[in-house]
């Protein structure tokens, strides 16, 4: 594709089903009622000059450039604010209009620097285009009068500049920030000629203001007033390739805008169905890690983890890994081998890793990083509904009346979806937040939660059961829905269970610490407020009762009839970009792709025939059990693609002991991550910009990832897996991920209709894509549950074994922040560190005072498992008795503190509850110091590359 700006029809589409006929410049056109004259003209192939309008925000009518003449109407109305009407006759190009537009344009130009030739937006500037469109040749007012030229540029944001001299005060940025992003960071100060855009207060700049650097204003700006620094540095893009963000489970699609082999900018794609043209700071700006100096591009090996690394050729590295794996297999059997797939890699790469482990290693010891985030979602939703996935698409939120957010922090974790949710809330939907922390959503500009239930960490099941108690005992359950769609007997058992007075909000208040009356009101609102939708995240799953909580959520949705149509549903907000895909692709040790148990002989045979191999009929080991087995000496070799288990998994010491006990650890990643300290083979990985494939987002949407540049390491990740598999005798010959996708489609019923060419045509597909749903299924369970009848499961509240006591009186819970992603391996290597240079421990003022701690003091955070140090942030966002931190920086080592406790059904670690003590400290803990020495030692590389 050559470079073209994305089409801009001037004003947003109308949702009306009625159509209106009108005539524009002699052309007859039919458009939905409510469409603006400007948009109708654009749809009929015309162009009305405009400056203050753009189709991502509501029209405002301030620039007066878009004037038109309409038969029977006086004057020259603005086409952006005038809706079409039946039989309307519009003229967009008359002499009178041209004259008017030229004078308007003259005024703008007289206050503009006119350094077009040297401006970064040259040839990509709407002011320039429209000046040409209105035929402006010279400016009568002269440039001498008072103007805004020479005002200081605000360069505080690491990614874009604000140059007020180029601002035409169209307010598109202000409206984009308000309407699209929902942050309300910008204001237009002054009136008329004095108008000036400002971020935050008078003393603020972009960086110090509330701005979250989403880029919506930059995209909306018609001039170079708001422009990416990269465009200035690299130059204007020459081509654009549509691809999918590799950060979070929202799955925003972007145009990777390129100049030669260099990425200039990532611009959110307006046709992207997950993001609808919006983005967050990570996907939009934080891609610099791809070229970071820390990136390793040559394979490395070493005999022992205490030795320095030796850079070698690909052939040597693959042969070394294969020889070790083979030797271990011969000596200890296939069960001593295993692999870990990555939720950051593509479906095709993940599929190939599990295929290699099952069919080449000969074992089901394959697991994925989803183990530590959403494995309870898989278990819980499969049990309740019959399928391990969220029920809705993101568009669904536009039809919700009550939104219940539990254990999720969408404005930080899933920012683009959060913006859509916030828009719905500003339109009047009601919000219930169940979270120990006062997350931003509870109170943010123009949004206030109807109810915030600040529960004690670890009591999700108790809170949800209490809500169910209210709904059932106050006769608010939707029995018609339940009779029709669910197993009545199971419902009846559940009804009796939750009705018991020991489950009343009053009885449970001492456990949950949620005021009973507030909980009752929240339950009533959810049951009676119209379409009720539940969104949840890791605050639900990362508990010893993660799976029970997911099932309790499903119970609540079914009991209130909130399943099977737009606006309702159970929606897991997936952490990493391809968590859904990694789970779909058979990354769990008990399941083949498509969530089919390895016990099922028919399914095994299907795969055995296709793969020409025999598959083990018994489940393999999960990550924590692989580590146990390693310490016991029965698990010896592991291939880890794109995951840093040492940093992301609980109880770092246990992980370290497990890895240290293995004889062959192969790490396949972009950077020498923390796990690589224990590796014998390092295979350099490729970034999402360097590969083809697909990701599946949290709404089951399969989207293409496209290669925009050659892999710096020489191979796409699926090719590396293929090299290793072939060195072990696999004989694979895939030449493009499309072929792997075909294999997935032929083996996985829910992917039957998916292919690379189909995705090229339609952009994205939401599984299931099969005979019944040839174009995919935005909303699931419309006419019945996948499993037949919806299943109510009695979820008994079982308190976690992790208890506070005199030695560890506080509860630690963990989370993430907007500007960083997971363990931060990528975002820490970008300018996003401007917002979050270190992990901080949030603590309530009362707890801080008791310990003599002030904001910014170093503290020692200790649990039964270990201790670390970090600085404290005193805030009443957390309740007394609760402390909170993120885990984005390896120095913090938050997982040195977390315990081995995990979800009863899936072993998803209990990150969200650890009993801790916090004390003043003056420096790093012994473990941190030892660890940092070991890391330095382990990362040594012998520089001279042997001849190939």
């Amino acid at each position: 594709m050559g470079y073209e700006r994305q089409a801009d029809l001037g004003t947003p589409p109308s949702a009306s089903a009625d159509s209106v006929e009108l005539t524009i410049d002699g052309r007859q056109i039919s458009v939905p009622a409510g469409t603006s004259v400007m948009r109708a003209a654009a749809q009929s192939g015309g162009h009305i000059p405009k400056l203050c309008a753009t189709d991502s925000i509501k029209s405002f009518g301030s620039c007066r450039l878009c004037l038109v003449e309409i038969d029977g109407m006086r004057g020259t109305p603005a086409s952006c604010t005038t809706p079409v009407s039946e039989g309307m006759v519009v003229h967009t190009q008359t002499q009178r209009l041209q004259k008017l537009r030229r004078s308007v344009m003259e005024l703008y130009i007289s206050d503009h620097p006119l350094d077009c030739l040297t401006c970064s937006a040259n040839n990509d500037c709407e002011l320039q285009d429209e000046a040409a469109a209105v035929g402006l040749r010279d400016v009568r007012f002269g440039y001498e009068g008072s103007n805004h030229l020479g005002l200081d540029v605000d360069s505080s944001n690491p990614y874009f500049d604000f140059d007020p001299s180029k601002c035409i005060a169209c307010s598109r940025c202000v409206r984009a920030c308000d309407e699209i992003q929902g942050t309300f960071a910008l204001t237009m100060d002054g009136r008329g000629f004095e108008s000036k855009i400002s971020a935050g207060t008078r003393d603020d700049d972009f960086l110090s203001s509330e701005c979250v650097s989403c880029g919506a204003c930059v995209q909306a700006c018609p001039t170079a007033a708001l422009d990416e620094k990269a465009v200035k540095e690299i130059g204007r893009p020459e081509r654009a390739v549509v691809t999918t963000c590799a950060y979070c489970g929202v799955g925003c699609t972007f145009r990777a805008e390129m100049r030669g082999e260099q990425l200039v900018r990532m611009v959110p794609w307006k046709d992207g169905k997950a993001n609808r043209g919006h983005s967050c700071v990570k996907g939009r700006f934080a891609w610099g890690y791809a070229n970071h100096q820390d990136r390793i591009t040559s394979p490395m090996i070493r005999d022992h983890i205490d030795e320095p690394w030796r850079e070698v050729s690909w052939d040597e590295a693959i042969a070394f890994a294969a020889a070790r794996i083979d030797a271990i297999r011969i000596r200890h059997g296939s069960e001593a081998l295993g692999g870990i797939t990555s939720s950051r890699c593509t479906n095709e790469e993940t599929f190939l890793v599990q295929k290699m482990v099952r069919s080449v290693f000969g074992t089901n010891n394959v697991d994925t990083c989803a183990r530590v985030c959403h494995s309870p979602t898989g278990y819980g939703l499969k049990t309740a509904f019959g399928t391990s996935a969220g029920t809705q698409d993101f568009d669904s939120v536009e039809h919700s009346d009550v939104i219940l957010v539990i254990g999720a922090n969408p404005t930080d974790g899933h920012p683009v979806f959060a913006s859509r949710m916030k828009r719905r809330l500003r339109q009047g939907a009601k919000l219930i937040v169940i979270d120990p922390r006062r997350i931003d959503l509870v109170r943010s500009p123009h949004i206030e939660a109807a109810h915030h239930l600040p529960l004690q960490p670890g009591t999700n099941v108790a809170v949800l059961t209490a809500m169910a108690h209210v709904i059932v005992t106050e006769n608010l359950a939707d029995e018609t829905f339940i009779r029709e769609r669910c197993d009545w007997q199971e419902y009846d058992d559940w009804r009796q269970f939750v009705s018991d007075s020991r489950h009343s909000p009053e009885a449970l208040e001492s456990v949950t610490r949620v005021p009973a009356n507030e909980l009752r009101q929240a339950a009533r609102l959810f049951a009676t407020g119209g379409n009720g939708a539940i969104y949840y995240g890791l605050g639900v799953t990362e508990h010893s009762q993660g799976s029970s909580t997911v099932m309790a959520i499903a119970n609540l949705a079914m009991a209130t009839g909130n399943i099977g149509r737009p606006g309702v549903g159970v929606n897991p907000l997936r952490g990493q970009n391809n968590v859904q895909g990694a789970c779909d692709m058979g990354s769990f040790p008990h399941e083949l792709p498509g969530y089919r148990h390895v016990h099922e002989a028919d399914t095994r045979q299907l795969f055995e025939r296709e793969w020409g191999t025999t598959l083990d009929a018994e489940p393999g080991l999960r990550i924590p059990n692989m580590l146990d087995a390693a310490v016991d000496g029965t698990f010896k070799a592991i291939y880890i693609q794109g995951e840093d288990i040492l940093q992301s998994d609980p109880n770092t010491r246990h992980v370290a002991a497990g890895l240290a006990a293995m004889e062959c650890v192969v790490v396949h990643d972009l950077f020498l991550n923390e796990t690589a300290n224990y590796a014998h083979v390092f295979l350099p990985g490729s970034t999402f910009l360097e590969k083809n494939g697909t990701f599946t987002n949290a709404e089951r949407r399969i989207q293409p990832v496209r290669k925009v540049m050659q892999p710096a390491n020489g191979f796409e990740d699926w090719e590396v897996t293929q090299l290793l598999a072939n060195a072990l005798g696999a004989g694979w010959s895939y030449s493009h991920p499309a072929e792997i996708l075909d294999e997935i489609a032929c083996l996985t019923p829910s992917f039957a209709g998916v292919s690379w060419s189909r995705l090229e045509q339609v952009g994205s597909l939401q599984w299931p894509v099969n005979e019944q749903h040839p174009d995919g299924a935005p909303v699931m369970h419309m006419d019945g549950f996948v499993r037949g009848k919806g299943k109510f499961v009695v979820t008994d509240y079982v308190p976690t074994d992790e208890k506070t006591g005199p030695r560890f009186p506080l509860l630690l819970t963990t989370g993430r922040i907007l500007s960083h992603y997971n363990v931060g391996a990528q975002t820490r290597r970008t300018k996003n560190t401007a917002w979050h240079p270190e992990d901080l421990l949030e603590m309530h003022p009362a707890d801080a005072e008791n310990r003599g701690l002030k904001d910014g003091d170093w503290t020692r955070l200790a649990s039964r498992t270990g201790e670390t140090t970090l600085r404290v942030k005193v805030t009443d966002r957390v309740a007394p008795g609760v402390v909170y931190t993120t885990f984005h920086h390896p120095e913090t080592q938050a997982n040195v503190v977390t315990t081995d406790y995990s979800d009863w059904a899936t072993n998803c670690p209990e990150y969200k509850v650890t009993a801790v003590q916090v004390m003043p400290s003056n420096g790093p803990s012994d473990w941190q110091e030892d660890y940092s020495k070991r890391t330095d030692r382990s990362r040594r590389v012998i520089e001279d590359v042997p001849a190939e």
Partner: protein
Amino acid sequence: MNETAHSVIRMANQIARNFEILGKEAAVAATQDHIASFWDRRMKAAAFGLLPSADVGFSPLAREALERLAGETDGAGHQDAG
């Protein structure tokens, strides 16, 4: 006792505890089914190996589920649920 043994005791008890609400018979069956479905051979074997000692710390429900599973499983830890 090795790492796997420690883990299987804790895991079996936790699974059984979460099913306890179903009543004894159903809870034992559900625990047995869960372990059969999700544990690898060596974990099952480690758990079975612990059954003869009375004081390893299995809860009564977990113990019964494991005993039943052991009875239905061949020596290699393989359960033919095909």
